[in-house]
Every structure is written in structure tokens, then in C-alpha cells.
């Protein structure tokens, strides 16, 4: 009697669909990778095509932390605090070799990969990575969200 006006699904599926298509990135830009991130967001590469164009500069309003650039040891507690301030659920992209491993800054002042401080979901190689690589990382995050067994409600 209702024809095709109903669509049945599960709460999990809807949540995951909504989350993966409305990521709010928070750029933690400390170096040249942040410049590359600007072009990812801008019209030519256009992160908006993947629903992640609403860049937030407050961790309270973001669920995707993009660490773009070298993180010094002195900056590490700041990065940890920003990560802790983000509301669950949240994901992290380490953009570029500096954020992933310290890169060629193998010295006394630089964090040897942000995964010594916070958990990382996707690492992006490159110095800096091409915008396509960053888009690919966002798509990888989306796939990861889609595959989550039990999407945490809050």
C-alpha cells in the first residue's frame, strides 16, 4: 500500500554514510605541507567533492585531524592537547614524511613521527605529497569509516 516510499536500513549504515560524507577536517599545519593542503581544499582539487570542505580551526568542531608538517618536540604537547580536545569519533591523517616519521629532520628537536604521540589512521608519503595523494588519504578514511564494525554512537 505504500509503494516504493520506504527505504529500510540500519542505524549503523546511516551513521557511517553520514560520517564519511561530512568529514570536518582540522588542519594542524606547521610547514610546507600546509601550503599543499590549501591547494587540496581549493577549487582545482576541491576536497568538497568528498564532503570534507568545511575546514574547522577549532578542534571541538572537527573530526578529522590533518597533521601537515614538521612537529617539533616543543610542539608535541600542543598537538596532543588538540587531539584530546576533538570529540569522538575522530580520525587522523599524517600528511607528508615529517608528520609520518620525522622525515629528514632526524635530529634533537623533531618528533620522529606523530604516532609516538597520537594514533594515526592514514599516513601519506611525499615531501610534500601531491594533492591527489591527500585526496586518496581522505578516501581511505572514508573506506575505513564504512568498514567499521560497530560505529560508536558518540
Amino acid at each position, binding site marked *: 500500500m505504500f509503494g516504493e516510499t520506504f527505504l529500510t536500513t540500519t542505524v549503523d549504515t546511516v551513521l557511517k554514510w553520514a560520517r564519511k560524507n561530512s568529514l570536518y577536517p582540522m588542519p594542524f599545519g606547521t610547514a610546507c605541507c600546509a601550503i599543499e593542503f590549501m591547494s587540496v581544499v581549493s577549487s582545482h582539487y576541491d576536497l568538497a567533492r568528498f564532503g570534507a570542505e568545511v575546514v574547522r580551526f577549532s578542534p571541538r568542531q572537527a573530526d578529522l585531524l590533518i597533521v601537515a608538517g614538521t612537529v617539533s*618536540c616543543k610542539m608535541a604537547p600542543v598537538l*596532543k592537547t588538540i587531539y584530546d580536545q576533538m570529540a569522538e569519533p575522530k580520525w587522523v591523517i599524517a600528511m607528508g614524511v615529517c608528520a609520518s616519521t620525522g622525515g629528514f629532520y632526524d635530529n634533537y628537536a623533531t618528533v620522529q613521527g606523530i604516532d609516538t604521540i597520537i594514533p594515526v589512521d592514514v599516513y601519506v608519503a611525499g615531501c610534500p605529497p601531491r594533492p591527489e595523494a591527500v585526496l586518496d588519504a581522505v578516501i581511505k578514511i572514508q573506506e575505513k569509516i564504512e568498514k567499521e564494525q560497530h560505529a560508536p554512537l558518540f
Partner: protein
Amino acid sequence: MSETTCATAAEVGLLLANRFADAVTEGPGPVGDTCLYVTPEKIVDVVRVLRDEQRFDFLMDETCVDYPDREPRFEVIYNLYSLSTGVRVFLKVKADDSEPGVPSITPLYRAANWFEREIYDMFGVRFAGHPDLRRILLYESFKGHALRKDYDATLRQPLIGPADGPDHARRHG
């Protein structure tokens, strides 16, 4: 004042060598710039003469080099420039890391404040009379001085987290 201003760095060197006979000696000039060794006791007086009489109005840089085989092992280098005459002079002071250290020129040039803090941070050279001699780039808990030649290049002492290597801790899946 301006009639006594030297037109070249060599003249400045001669003037200082005459005025401070025992305290100023000629140093190496690797790139052709005038470079003078000054004793720590006289560095403030020499810099004051340059600033007040020779119109060296710009402390471009103050830095340090570690020569571990020498005694004393450090050289503090002052890069003074005159915007009005275009003359540049390098001054060098031999120093070690003992108290009270090289007299600070922060009272003469406020720019020296952070330069001297950086030298203290990286080399451990102290500056007597500096208003606020703390580390400037690294953190208080950092042990040692990173730009000394005998600082272990592989040593890691991060503020938080393990020193090295990813632990790949994942919260999701």
C-alpha cells in the same frame, strides 16, 4: 661625531686596536670582512664605542662556534653593521661555559637579548648581566646543549611520548 666616523671596516679595526691596545687583536678574516678578537673584559666597552661613536646601529647577529679542541672552547661572534656608513665589523670573544660568563651586551642592543639566550640554549655559554638568561628554543627539561660538537646526534629526549619508532597504536579496528 660624524666627522670621526670611519668609512671602512679596516679603519674601524685600526681605531679599536689603538684605543684598546691590550684588549683588541686582529682575527681571521675568512671572507674579507674585518674580524677582531676582543677580551671578555672589554667587549662591552668596545661595542659601546662602535655604537655611540661609529654609528653601528644594527646588531645583525650574535652567534657562537664550538671548537672542542681549543681552550677555551667557544667563540662568541658579534656581527655589527652600520646602516649609515655601510660598514660591517665582526667581533669575537673566546669563552667557556663557566660562571659568570661573557658580559652581556643586552643593555646596549636589545636585539642581543634573544641572541644570547639562543647561545646559552645551544652551547651553554653564560652571559653576565643578562636580564633573563633562560632557554629560548628548547624546553627547560632538555638536558645538555644541542649544538655542542660532543652532543650525541642520535640522542632523543622528547617532551612527551617515546623517543623513537612508531608504535602504530590504533583505536579504530
